[in-house]
């Protein structure tokens, strides 16, 4: 057949664990397994398109494939934003299994196909944790605190516990925490080293679930359809394998990070059952709010299915 070079857009930098153990690894595996029938030109760090424009870029032929941060595309992929809700998965592996199941068949997959792209594989970040200069336990502890959140779901998470969700651009979070402008931050632990937040906080939770984040690798549907069937199968198979690999790598890395932070004298703590119950109870509101906002057919069913998949 004819060799196909796909332009693949990515908003993550190549030094991020998601790129090393996920995107880059998958591209190399596909190139090798297809004997060069498919190869990639990788455009990391938003070089080809801004994070919110990646989906459009694939549709318009600027790119052929992209690693989407689905929460950036909540207006075209509302149902996929279910993964952002707090209180569901407790590890990247658990969340990734659930996401892969939902991408295989059902409304999340249909939504992506309707947007003109075919999902190859998806994975999640480990659940968001709370980082602060004091230990935050019961929902009451959060009252009136200024908490950095990103996006509406997280802002609602903060509000459900009586805190204030504050939007601050990523690059300014470090300075804002250091100088006390923020009391706490909701953050995926794997990204903490990137922003060096461990330099400026003293307490990090390890078993909370303050929201999730999903990545989905997509290829433009009309291009994917024209690929030979065995190539399609290889991409999907290697995708499924990569998804679980990057999830496990992140879980392991978080474990390593926690040990390292502990050695640095940071209080890395687990919530007690009473605290978890109090937090989960408060955060129920967020799911209700999501259903009202999305206001789409089948949203309720998606939520139930997601709950079932992450209870395993």
């Amino acid at each position: 057949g004819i060799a196909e070079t796909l332009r693949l857009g990515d908003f993550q930098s190549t030094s991020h664990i998601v790129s090393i153990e996920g995107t880059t690894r998958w591209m190399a595996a596909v190139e090798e397994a297809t004997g060069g029938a498919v190869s990639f030109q990788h455009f990391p760090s938003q070089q080809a398109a801004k994070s919110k424009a990646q989906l459009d870029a694939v549709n318009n032929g600027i790119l052929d494939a992209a690693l989407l941060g689905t929460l950036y595309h909540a207006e075209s992929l509302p149902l996929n934003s279910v993964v952002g809700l707090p209180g569901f998965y407790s590890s990247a592996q658990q969340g990734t299994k659930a996401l892969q199941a939902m991408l295989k068949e059902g409304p999340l997959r249909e939504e992506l196909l309707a947007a003109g792209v075919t999902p190859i594989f998806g994975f999640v970040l480990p659940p968001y944790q709370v980082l602060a200069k004091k230990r935050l336990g019961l929902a009451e502890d959060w009252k009136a605190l200024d908490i950095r959140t990103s996006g509406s779901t997280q802002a609602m998470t903060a509000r459900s516990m009586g805190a204030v969700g504050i939007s601050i651009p990523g690059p300014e979070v470090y300075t804002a925490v250091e100088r006390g402008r923020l009391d706490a931050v909701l953050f995926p632990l794997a990204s903490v080293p990137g922003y060096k937040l461990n330099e400026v906080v003293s307490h990090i939770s390890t078993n909370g679930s303050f929201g999730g984040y999903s990545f989905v690798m997509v290829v433009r549907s009309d291009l994917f359809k024209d690929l030979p069937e065995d190539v399609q199968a290889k991409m999907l198979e290697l995708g499924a394998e990569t998804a679980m690999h990057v999830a496990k790598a992140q879980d392991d890395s978080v474990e390593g990070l926690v040990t390292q932070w502990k050695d640095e004298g940071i209080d890395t703590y687990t919530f007690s059952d009473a605290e978890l119950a109090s937090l989960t109870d408060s955060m129920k509101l967020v799911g209700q709010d999501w259903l009202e906002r999305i206001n789409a057919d089948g949203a309720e069913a998606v939520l139930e299915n997601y709950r079932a998949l992450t209870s395993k």
Partner: protein
Amino acid sequence: MITFLALLCLLALFMVFRMPIAFAMGLVGFIGLALQLGWRPAFAVLERIFFDSSSSFILVAIPLFILMAELLTSGDVTRRAIHACQCWIGHVKGGLAMATVASSVLLAALVGSSTASTAAMAASAFPEMRNHNYADRLAAAVVSVGGTLAVVVPPSIVLVVYGVLTETSIGQLFIAGIVPGLLTASGLALVIKIIATRTDQAPKGDPFQLGKAVKASRHVIPMGLLMVGVIGAIYGGVASPSEAAALGVMGSLIIVLVQRSITFVGLSTSVSAAIRATVMIVAIVTCSAIFANYLAFTRITHALLEFASTTDLPRAAILAFMVLILLVMGMFMDQLAILSLAMPLAFPTAMALGYDPVWFGIVVTKTVEIGLLTPPLGLNAYVASAQTGVALGTIFRGIVPFLLMELVVLVVLLCFPEITLWLPSLMLG
């Protein structure tokens, strides 16, 4: 490659025949994209390019700091403050330009963006130098070069982006920037000294009179209070660096209202001028983003850096080659575009060669900053020109001696990593 060179010639042609720089870069970038990807994708890039380039909270610092400077200037606050400095050091040749450098360092501790800093100094310090018969080319060059201090001295947007892209400690990068920043400022002062002694571009002011100097000093108080207030707000945790710019506007407004030194017309002219400068800057940033996008799709920097990372030349030669590529990119691109395009390859290469990540960050930042002073895309010179009305050619000529100094500082930083790493190592105990 031939297409690429042809397009560069086209860009040069457009610019020489005085097409506005923003338009020329956008047009050439667009044509390049069309040739590279096809017309449909090229058109699609235009869909949201203005929105994506302007819809950013971090950008608010630019119009707000310009507005702050415009208010203070039209309310006569800066003139009086600089007059006070003039009374103290005006009898030294080039003294006022050196005072401008000192103010740039102070402003740099406040601002994380080069363009915002340059615009503020161009609006406030430049008119004073002109009033004291400084040559336009020197005065405009000093504010352009002084502006680059903003990203070396913390806080700095460029250092933060580098830190995030490469997972290097932002705290250490900030501390590491202090000494190179002061070194650059000293270099600036030295060049001013030489120019003042050898030419008549920086005349001597009135002879020194202690009484007059002491009496004039009270005019420094409002500016001093404003500085302390705004820096205090950032370091005291009241506001983030972007938000602090808004506090600065409020503070300046209060000062000029209390002094009753501004009219409604003055107010609206200030706002209008701030918008004018911002629109010009965003237009250039947007259109050069189209060009940078084209450059990303040509994979030329990728190929060059890949060559650097795979060749078996000595490590110093590879480093020099990479710095050279960054310098050339700086002629055509915005700093943040350069970082995102080059760091994915340049950083791992530097690490593989065994260089220190913090030191490399300062070197890279310094290198891309130099790009703000070089034609054709030299954003600081553009901002200074737009704000002061001095012709671009004049400013670029005025910048030449300072550019040589910047290169010397860069080489010094490259040869003596201790200069950069000494302070951070001290902090770590």
